[in-house]
């Protein structure tokens, strides 16, 4: 008899083990992953958000960057170099970006002595930094992208994100393994049934978008392949720079020599590059300006419309020069991809992650699936506690209730708290004065302070009240955003519609839709709150597992 039982028992304990792994791995990673997903999903529309966050730019410019003449582009490079020579002569890296639609000036960036990135926008006419009233300093939608892959924490942030994304892969696979009726339950969502509903919601958001979830996690990790998995390179090359040179078929990176050498006239090299590539240039970089190892690269023009539908993009083209004497070091002509297949695979995976290969249709599809992914994590984290409120599983002995309370506080702060911080970021964009130094950094600091405030709030309030209050705040901030915009800038949804600024219309409408959804959530939570109050004593904040 025991032999007959054995296979069943083994299968059962295999399932239990995968269940344990999914539950605990999933929970521990849920807060970081929810953040990564929410900010990444919002970041799909980073350019559009930046457009809304820079109302002066849209008002001022009728400027079409593609219509610039060669003379104008060359003149822009000259002005940029003059500025950089004057203000960043001892920097290790320069970048000059020609005007784009959201940046109607010359974007010059450099790394200062502390290796921090600095940048400013120069006026095309004067070559001097544009006055702040014409160009509100903001990181715009790119803030969400930076949050998404590095939490604004540089290399440490990139590793942090990579670590939790690996846990996501494990959670996805273990989740598939333990999901007994994956096909039978495919379309199942039973509402109003408590724990059952939370599980259905978690399963539905996960399974219906499963190909996307697996793809987005894996491709995200592949983007930073050379950072996360350097073993192959390190085992075969004593100098990793040689690996990149061989892979990309380019000259090797030259280390600094310490010997001074002037940078030649970049505009001449820029012109020469345009001739060699047969197309206009878009931006150029200078490595080690002022050193005898200085190298400059001119990159060819590109437009998203050129890549519509392409998962493997044509090369944009670039030319590399010795910046001390103008010698050509390398030409990568624009045209069809011509390097090896493995790197093509990596590039395809990269494009698949970025959602910019198919215009707005693909962006919206990714936005919806990304939100579903965020929902998958949120419902998972909430389900963990819903189940244990029915009956504590006592995983931590005497400390269990306290651990559950900590998890509860983190859930509220990570989910509704983050939502409040995100909408608050847009409010800060309109409320922070123009002339504050490091204005862009203050918007981001405000985002983090708001989030921290929500964490403190959720630690001090009983759970259901905390959820209700934070979602109420989100609802208020979201629904009032267009009005606040009207008061602070004179523009809003209606005026955007009238002037045909569809990007801003889309932004405000989306915010309103989320505001209405959270209003529904607030009404739901209020009903739940009054129901609980009617039938039981209000719990003290410290032991509220209500």
């Amino acid at each position, binding site marked *: 008899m025991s032999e007959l039982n054995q296979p069943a028992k083994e299968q059962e304990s295999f399932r239990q083990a995968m269940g344990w792994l999914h539950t605990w791995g999933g929970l521990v990673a849920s807060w970081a992953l929810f953040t990564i997903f929410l900010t990444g999903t919002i970041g799909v529309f980073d350019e559009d958000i930046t457009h809304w966050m820079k109302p002066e730019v849209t008002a001022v410019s009728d400027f079409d960057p593609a219509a610039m003449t060669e003379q104008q582009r060359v003149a822009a490079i000259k002005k940029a170099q003059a500025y950089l020579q004057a203000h960043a002569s001892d920097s290790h890296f320069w970048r000059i970006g020609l005007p784009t639609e959201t940046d109607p000036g010359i974007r010059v960036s450099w790394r200062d002595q502390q290796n921090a990135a600095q940048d400013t926008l120069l006026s095309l006419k004067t070559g001097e930094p544009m006055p702040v009233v014409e160009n509100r300093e903001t990181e715009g939608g790119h803030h969400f992208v930076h949050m998404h892959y590095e939490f604004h924490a540089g290399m440490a942030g990139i590793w942090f994100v990579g670590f939790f994304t690996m846990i996501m892969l494990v959670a996805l696979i273990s989740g598939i393994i333990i999901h007994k009726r994956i096909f039978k339950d495919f379309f*199942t969502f039973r509402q109003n049934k408590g724990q059952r509903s939370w599980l259905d919601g978690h399963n539905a958001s996960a399974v219906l978008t499963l190909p996307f979830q697996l793809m987005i996690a894996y491709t995200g990790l592949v983007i930073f392949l050379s950072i996360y998995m350097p073993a192959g390179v390190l085992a075969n090359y004593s100098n990793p720079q040689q690996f990149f040179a061989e892979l990309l078929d380019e000259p090797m990176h030259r280390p600094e020599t310490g010997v001074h050498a002037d940078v030649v006239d970049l505009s001449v090299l820029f012109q020469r590059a345009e001739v060699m590539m047969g197309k206009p240039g878009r931006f150029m970089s200078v490595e080690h300006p002022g050193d005898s190892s200085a190298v400059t690269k001119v990159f060819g023009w590109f437009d998203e419309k050129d890549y519509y539908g392409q998962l493997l993009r044509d090369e944009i083209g670039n030319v590399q020069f010795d910046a001390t004497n103008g010698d050509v070091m390398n030409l990568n002509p624009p045209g069809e991809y011509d390097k090896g297949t493995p790197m093509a695979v990596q590039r395809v995976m990269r494009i698949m992650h970025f959602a910019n290969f198919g215009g707005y249709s693909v962006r919206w599809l990714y936005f919806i699936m990304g939100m579903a992914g965020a929902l998958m994590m949120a419902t998972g984290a909430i389900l963990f506690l819903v189940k244990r409120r029915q009956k504590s599983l006592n995983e931590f002995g005497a400390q269990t209730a306290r651990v559950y309370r900590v998890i509860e506080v983190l859930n509220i702060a990570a989910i509704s708290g983050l939502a409040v911080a995100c909408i608050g970021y847009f409010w800060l964009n309109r409320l922070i004065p123009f002339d504050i130094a490091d204005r862009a950094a203050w918007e981001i600091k405000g985002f983090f302070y708001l989030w921290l405030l929500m964490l403190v709030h959720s630690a001090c309030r009983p759970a259901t009240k905390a959820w209700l209050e934070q979602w109420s705040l989100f609802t208020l901030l979201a629904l009032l955003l267009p009005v606040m915009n009207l008061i602070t800038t004179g523009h809003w949804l209606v005026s955007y519609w009238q002037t045909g600024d569809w990007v801003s219309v889309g932004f405000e409408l989306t915010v309103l839709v989320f505001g209405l959804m959270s209003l529904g959530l607030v009404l739901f939570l209020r009903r739940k709150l009054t129901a609980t109050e009617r039938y039981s004593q209000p719990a003290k904040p410290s032991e509220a597992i209500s």
Partner: protein
Amino acid sequence: MSVAMMMSVALCYAAMSGLSLAMPRHLMDVTDRRLTATQVRVLRWTASLVLILAYLPMWQVWGAGTGFVVWVSVLSVTSIVLVLLLSYGPKWAVRVAFLMMLSASFLWLMQ
């Protein structure tokens, strides 16, 4: 949204709703009628065929590879809409399915 995208969305939704109604638990929410085993099989096969058809406009507009990626995405998103309708308004789920089939035929004839 281009015509091809609209057609694919319509066909994907219709196909997925067909597949869902082939399951007794979802059919129950919509109607008291029961389907015979043969009817279920026919429904499944038809829905699967419509699913494949939904890929064709994607192939035409985006190419085979990108078209596949977009097709899978459309499947996911239409399934989400379907699941919400099945839960909050099952009869509407079916009405929308018929509407989608009509729209898709209309769009195809208009080409």
